[in-house]
């Protein structure tokens, strides 16, 4: 066995070359592992630097809307959808399933959230818009999703959303679905809630 290994390194020059190659390749491996972690922040930096518009993020300045005029004939239907993640025992629904709005006007919609447990819980709503191409034309001036929402034991709260659809919305889009998912802000507390069905919610006491 040793003979084979010794012969694999006939001269020291070749041994050095081998070591050099191994070191370079190992550097590539570690570099690529790090690349996986920096790729997301790097992408954001590059987009900001180059001025690329990333989807779902409105990079328009507010003054773009200062001069908007309403196209009197045009109407867009907004459908509301509300869900709660499995680890947050809340009831959450829109007061109106759908509204018809005119682009350029500010509208208000309300959602109703109720804490079904006997403990105080904090949630964070995550929005999503379908079709996604419409996301940049949808502006919220006020939203319960801008901050965490805390609900006391059994508390019910109206959640307010003020929004405007831009007149620049492509003509072929006539219906938008706006969906909110409430997530438990504290994953540890959420784990305890996960296997509890809403029916036995009244039995749930403090977290610990």
């Amino acid at each position, binding site marked *: *066995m040793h003979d084979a290994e010794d012969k694999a390194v006939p001269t020291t020059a070749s041994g050095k070359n*081998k070591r050099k*190659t191994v070191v370079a390749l190992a550097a*590539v491996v570690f570099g690529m592992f790090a690349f996986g972690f920096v790729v*997301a922040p790097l992408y954001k930096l590059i987009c900001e630097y180059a001025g690329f518009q990333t989807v779902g993020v409105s990079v328009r300045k507010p003054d773009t809307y200062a001069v908007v005029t309403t196209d009197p004939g045009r109407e867009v239907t907004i459908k509301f959808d509300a869900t709660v993640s499995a680890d947050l025992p809340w009831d959450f629904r829109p007061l109106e399933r759908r509204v018809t709005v005119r682009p350029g006007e500010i509208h208000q919609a309300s959602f109703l959230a109720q804490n079904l447990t006997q403990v105080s819980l904090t949630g964070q709503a*995550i929005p999503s818009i379908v079709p996604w191409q419409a996301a940049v034309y949808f502006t919220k001036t006020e939203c319960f999703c801008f901050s965490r929402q805390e609900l006391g034991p059994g508390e019910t709260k109206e959640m307010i959303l003020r929004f405007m659809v831009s007149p620049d919305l492509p003509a072929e889009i006539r219906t938008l679905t706006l969906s909110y998912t409430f997530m438990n802000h504290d994953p540890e507390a959420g784990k305890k809630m996960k296997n509890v069905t809403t029916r036995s919610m009244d039995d749930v006491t403090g977290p610990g």
Partner: protein
Amino acid sequence: MTVEAVTHASEHHGPPAGWKRWICSTNHKDIGTMYLVFALIMLFLGGASAMVIRMELFMPGIQLVSPDLYNNLVTNHALIMVFGAVMPAAAGMANWMIPMMIGAPDMALPRLNNLSFWLLPAAAIMLILSFVVPFFPGGGTQINTGWTLYPPLSLEVGMAMDFLIFTVHILGISSILASINIIVTILNERAPGMDLFKMPVFCWAWLITAFLLILIMPVLAGGVTMLLFDRHFGTSFFNAAGGGDPVLFQHLFWFFGHPEVYVLLLPSMGILAHVIPTFARKPLFGYPSMIGSIIAIGAIGMLVWAHHQYTVGMSMNAVTYFMIGTILISIPVGLMVFNFIATMWRGAITFETPMLFAIGIIIMFSFAGLTGVMLAVIPGDIQYHDSYFVVAHFHYALLPGALFGLYAGVFYWLPKWTGNMYDETLGQWFFWLTIIGFNITFFPQHFLGLAGMPRRIIDYNVVFTEFNMISSIGAFLFGISQLLLLYIIVKTVRGGEKATHHVWEGAEGLEWQLPSPPPFHTWTEVPQVKYA
């Protein structure tokens, strides 16, 4: 090509006796054999899960397994076939053939070679544990995500997912070490006169494959590490509630996953570049363009990953870029296929089993290329996304493109490895049963997909019943015919007509100047390579 210092059979010593020969092996031939045996075992394990999937899909409704177990089988089938069968088989052939082809006495880093093989059984055990733990109380849910392991679903799975994450880590380390070894061997251990641009195509294919692996495996390792941290340490890489984004995982996964397709494909294309000239009795047509297309496939392949994610909501500019990039890949792939066809043109072709596989591959892989271009086009893809059309496409790409290429390699080199000729009649039976079974299995799935049958779902609409039955019957034929492969290999290892040094009259290269089977140590005296 001629060799001046023709080998003497290595006189000093043979392999050490007993189990130490295998556990402590640093010999490239023994490690290659272990890789190949491991791959064969995994092929049957992955095949068994495919059989259960096809049995379940024989009829609509839920008959054999639960939905979660079904999805776990789908996950395991993919992971076992990709990481357990195809990659180790290709690595086994690299181990056996590269040192013999370039005139090196062994791999450059023999102990590392031992480590990269022995990590594989450890990974296999971890993978099996991930399948087994959900059957025990407190074991949590089964891995129902598919091999892509997308969050948020993969954040919800029980502890089985942690076993799987460590499986991926171990597999990654194994592939990275093996790749470093192959690159160092090819760059530093070539015999004098063996120019990089005169090197056999199989070595070139593996050089590019190994580079791809060291670029992509660490990214996958990083992705699953983030998954692990999100699951247990409260980070929010992919958790939307904490400001993360599940789409990031998709990008990391496919940054690995798309080049991985070429990792599976290229070694097999390298094998074809030896098989086709041998049986057409003509030198390979367009060697420089062949090398060029391998490099181009590797390079472009690194930059088009997001065509797997057209439907997640990227900007129009981004998807357009990924579409154009993806379609561009068909140019070097097409060039490669044309080179193979031009090599056969007016050749004195004989149709031994490896050549039959090679011709079958050219036809069926081109078909996958065609559906690949269909899938690359954004509006088309949005229609076909996550349907059985995709399943049919990638099975046409990966079975001919990877597995059948390895089969061609097995039949081509088995006489060299064992010193015995395989049974040609049985080999041809195996070819035809495999090809017919394969096409009956996967061709109808194109239609199922176009008609709207989604993938990764245990049940289906009754209108899909007939084509699913045809597909399942094909799969059973395909599955059973693989037992014939096992029989042929065992029979050849145990004996048979003795093979000559040259084995095939049209074969060219250093490896054919060694005896069959080659002695334990070869090219201990460095050969001088001269090209005519």
